[in-house]
């Protein structure tokens, strides 16, 4: 008798019952065939869960970028405040 290669994976793909399942999505636990499974950062994901992960990652990096840009803006505003008074004083002396 021949043992299955991956005994924990159900035999059929969730989306394509005619195809054998080769992996399980780590998020929703659906069995997936080769065409439905995507290896992302070393883990198998289905299309829907991959889209959710990408969206979450995008929001996180977008949020971090906004925080970074806000800090940069505040730093530049401080520079503008000092430059305004210094250059203003210098110009007033020249004029």
């Amino acid at each position, binding site marked *: 008798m021949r043992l299955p290669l991956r005994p924990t994976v159900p035999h059929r793909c969730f989306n394509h019952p005619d195809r054998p399942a080769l992996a399980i999505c780590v998020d929703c636990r659906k069995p997936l065939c080769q065409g439905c499974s995507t290896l992302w950062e070393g883990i198998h994901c289905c299309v829907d869960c991959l889209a959710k992960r990408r969206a979450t990652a995008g929001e996180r990096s977008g949020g971090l970028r906004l925080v970074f840009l806000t800090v940069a803006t505040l730093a530049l505003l401080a520079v503008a405040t000092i430059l305004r008074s210094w250059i203003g004083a210098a110009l007033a*002396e020249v004029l």
Partner: protein
Amino acid sequence: MSRRELTTGAVLDTAVDLVSRRLPGMAGLLMLASLPLRFLEAWLANRLLQLGDKASEHVSYLTGLSVWVTLSLLLAFWGRAVWARSCTLALTGGEAERRISWRERLRLSPAGLVSYLYAATVAEVLFFALGWTLVALPVLAVLGGLAAATSALDHRPGLFASLGHVLRHARPFGVLAGLTLVFLMGVPVVFLNLSMLFQILVWAAGGMTGTAGAWWEVALSWENQQFVVLACAGAILLLEPFWLAALVVAVRQARARQSGEDLAAWFAALRPPVQEEA
């Protein structure tokens, strides 16, 4: 078939229509938001002129005033972003735009606002760093204005991406140069009109009440440095909605020409209305 050229005159006509006819309330909001900034800038300039060659001895006092200018600058930036968004909605929305509530108009996307604040602050810093060259002043005025005009457009914010987003819309060069020239000439014209208006008001008030009003005549004359500075600030305040609206229109029309949106709208207008069969 040929497209109509994008001209400075056509852009100005649309901008005037936006300010005076379609969005007067929002233009008023922009002026209100910019009013503290212009007043404080005039106050700081007046103090600098009064201190003269002793200004460097009062740097801490001047820095204190400068902090207030910076705080009011944030309010003015917000007003400009709201105004640019309203103009963009008016240009793209048509009839549907009239139904948009005030609350909806004031709702800015955080990414767009932060990106605009960053680009406008860079322009402000460059203004102080390069302003002494004089040639850079109109270029930086366009950069600051374009930062507001493009704030309502979707893009990915970033240290370089936000500046690149503004620079990508710095076209057509001829129209932007034309607009800059018109508004540079407009500032002294509005200044003269504004100061003459105050002098006529003093003269009329003196004639009606029979009082001499000598104090007001001195206060509102060109010999009074404080009045001249305030009238300059008032001229810039009055022109600001037109300037920003013109830049929004230029950006919007240039984008429409690039994407072919203007041709699609033209064809839709040329297409005869469909007759419904009974």
